[in-house]
């Protein structure tokens, strides 16, 4: 769907809700911006830290631990 938006004197603009919905953009994020065939192309990018969420999912500790009280399982003499 084509929509008209306004580019402000400070070169800012609003991304309409239905456009955000179409690309599943539901939170503020960083984006890559470039020019292709005289058109502005904006590509939202996932933040680096969020790409690592759950990176060790499925890993089991080698002994029974309680993550809430993780300091009970840290041997400070091993630092």
């Amino acid at each position, binding site marked *: 769907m084509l929509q008209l938006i306004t580019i402000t004197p400070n070169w800012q603009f609003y991304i309409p809700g239905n456009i955000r919905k179409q690309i599943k953009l539901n939170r503020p994020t960083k984006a890559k911006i470039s020019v292709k065939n005289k058109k502005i192309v904006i590509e939202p990018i996932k933040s680096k830290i969020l790409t690592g969420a759950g*990176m060790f999912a499925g890993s089991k500790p080698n002994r029974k631990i309680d993550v809430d009280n993780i300091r009970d399982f840290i041997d400070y003499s091993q630092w």
Partner: protein
Amino acid sequence: MVKIKKVFIDTNFWIRYFTKDNEIQYKATVDLVEKIESGKFRPFISAIVFLEINFVLSQLYDKNLKQINKCFDLIMSLRNLVIVNKTDFEKALKWHRNLKIKLPDCLIASCLPDNCVLVSWDKDFNKIKEIDSKKPSEF
């Protein structure tokens, strides 16, 4: 002007963020990281937390140096992250003696900048009246 809230992220938060050992609590960690990335909160961490993450991942989860360094790089990429390297041992020792809380917990609590909320599941922090501590799900 809206003042951005300061949050100090504890070790158990990061272990849960990376290991996803508990689905509900993992989701709370991701939600908070998303809020930090959108600029709603300013995150703080200390060198002690990095050392503890290193110990837990290497000694308890058998992760290698490369994997741990990857975690550190990810944490360091957090938007507006501030690393606190200063502790107040006198304050920590007072809490440790008077409240019978583990000394490392007290050292972490002593790192907190003014008006900064400690994000942790460790209930011992609630005993320290001078600091504000909350679970990730409370944000």
